[in-house]
């Protein structure tokens, strides 16, 4: 589902990711733990094509490597559900409108389906009674739950969560993590990045450690690609990295 093949990412002099090879299967839960600046956000930005690898190939579903055209990037992102540490909610809109925006963007559903879909997502995160509130009127924990509702409203196959409890106090963190675990148990793949090991323990998925741009297993060994996902060496000099695209 998500494959990194010898991916490095450099910002000027700084090496954010150092030849990372790693694979995540459908329905899997992976938690990447690492200190601030270890390269966690870069990892997620590479998956969403907000940035490009300096070296190596990132494959997400059938979207493989290279710089995607704008419309293919949009298509890729519509197949993912993303939760940010700072929520990324629109402050001038109600809770309902923030979640409905994701439904409208996907454009797969008739207008009559929007309200039931949004309400179902809000019920899942326990905020149906806050649908008319502006996001600025909510606590941080509630805002993160709105962001989760927005991420799940289109039933994506993968949920990416970048430090989802980073801005929350303990009780809200537990609520958010329970929500994410529930979503994963219903079948969605879940990739969470965090600085806190207890997040990984609560979620209970495969734990990877990111240190100085290197991705390690829980045992401290560098992650490797399963043999089935290792790209064969190019047969001819003209062979180029794949640029295919499609659904996840």
């Amino acid at each position, binding site marked *: 589902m998500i494959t990194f093949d010898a991916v490095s990412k450099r910002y000027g002099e700084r090496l954010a990711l150092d030849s990372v090879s790693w694979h995540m299967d459908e329905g899997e839960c992976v938690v990447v733990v690492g200190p601030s600046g270890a390269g966690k956000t870069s990892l997620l930005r590479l998956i969403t094509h907000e940035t490009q690898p300096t070296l190596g190939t990132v494959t997400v579903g059938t979207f493989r490597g290279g710089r995607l055209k704008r*419309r293919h990037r949009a298509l890729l*992102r519509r197949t993912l559900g*993303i939760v940010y540490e700072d929520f990324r*909610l*629109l402050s001038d809109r109600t809770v309902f409108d923030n979640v409905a925006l994701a439904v*409208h*963007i996907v*454009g797969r559903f008739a207008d009559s389906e929007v309200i039931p879909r949004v309400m179902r997502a809000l019920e899942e995160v326990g905020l149906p009674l806050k649908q008319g509130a502006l996001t600025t009127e909510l606590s941080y924990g509630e805002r993160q739950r709105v962001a989760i509702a927005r991420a799940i409203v289109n039933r994506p196959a993968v949920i990416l969560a970048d430090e989802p409890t980073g801005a929350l106090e303990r009780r809200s963190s537990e609520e958010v993590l329970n929500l994410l675990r529930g979503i994963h148990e219903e079948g969605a793949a879940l990739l969470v990045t965090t600085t806190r090991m207890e997040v990984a323990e609560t979620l209970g998925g495969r734990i990877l450690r990111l240190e100085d741009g290197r991705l390690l297993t829980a045992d401290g060994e560098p992650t490797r690609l399963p043999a089935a996902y290792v790209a064969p060496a190019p047969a001819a000099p003209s062979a180029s990295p794949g640029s295919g695209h499609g659904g996840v």
Partner: protein
Amino acid sequence: MHFVYFREMMRSFRQHRSVAVTAILSLTAALILSGLFLLLSWNAHVAIEQIGDRREMVVYLNDDVTASDRDVLIGRIHDLYGSVTYVTKDQAWKDFSAQIGDPSLLEAVGDNPLPASLHIKLKPELLTPDGMEATAKQISQFPEVEDVRYGAEWVRRLDQVARSLLVVTISVLAIAGLAVIMVVYNTLRLTVLTRRQQVEIMSRLGATGRFITTPFVMEAMTEALIASLLALGVLFAAQQTLAARAVSDIAFLPPVGVAGFLGGVLLLTLFASVLALSRVFRSVGS
């Protein structure tokens, strides 16, 4: 889906009312100025056309032309150059007498010295200085013709005035068009930049370029339409006031002109919108 675009546009209007109002007022001012010139230019054009319609060529006939030769000549001129009115010697004398008025002066002239003539209302395609000159030369070749007269210099000057007017009109419209493009371009850039966070979030959620840009384009088009209608309203009021108090002949733009004005402004707005959005999204959207 279209309702979503409309709601996004209305939201932007509400939240950036001062930017929208400033854009509408700036556009209205630019459009009033250009519309005013268009109106004056249109009226001048109508006046020149009317004067041009009166451009007539007078062909004086030899006294010894027989009736049958004259009729043949009238037929040929009618076919080749335009409608012909025959003025006999007697009619010419009567007209002359009516103009002079004083019988003593007419008695001093003695016999009627005036020739019969043909007054030709030329076909529209011949109503140019060069066309009239060539026509006069050709007609003067007929043996029945003694002389051909038309206001050559006057026609040339009229043509020069019309041409200068056209150049000035095009220049003013070009400047106004540029002003429309600048106002729309800068307003849209400002609007998008003030909604930068929204654009970034939409982009990260997988919104297509069309989903993000359509409300902005609709907003710009609506502002341009409101400004155009305001400008046309002001111009109509000015024309009515002038017509009632000072220049009764002044006319408002014909329906085709109004449609062209609106269509032109909307097309320029669309062009400016596409230009502004493509540039600004290169920096905002990722």
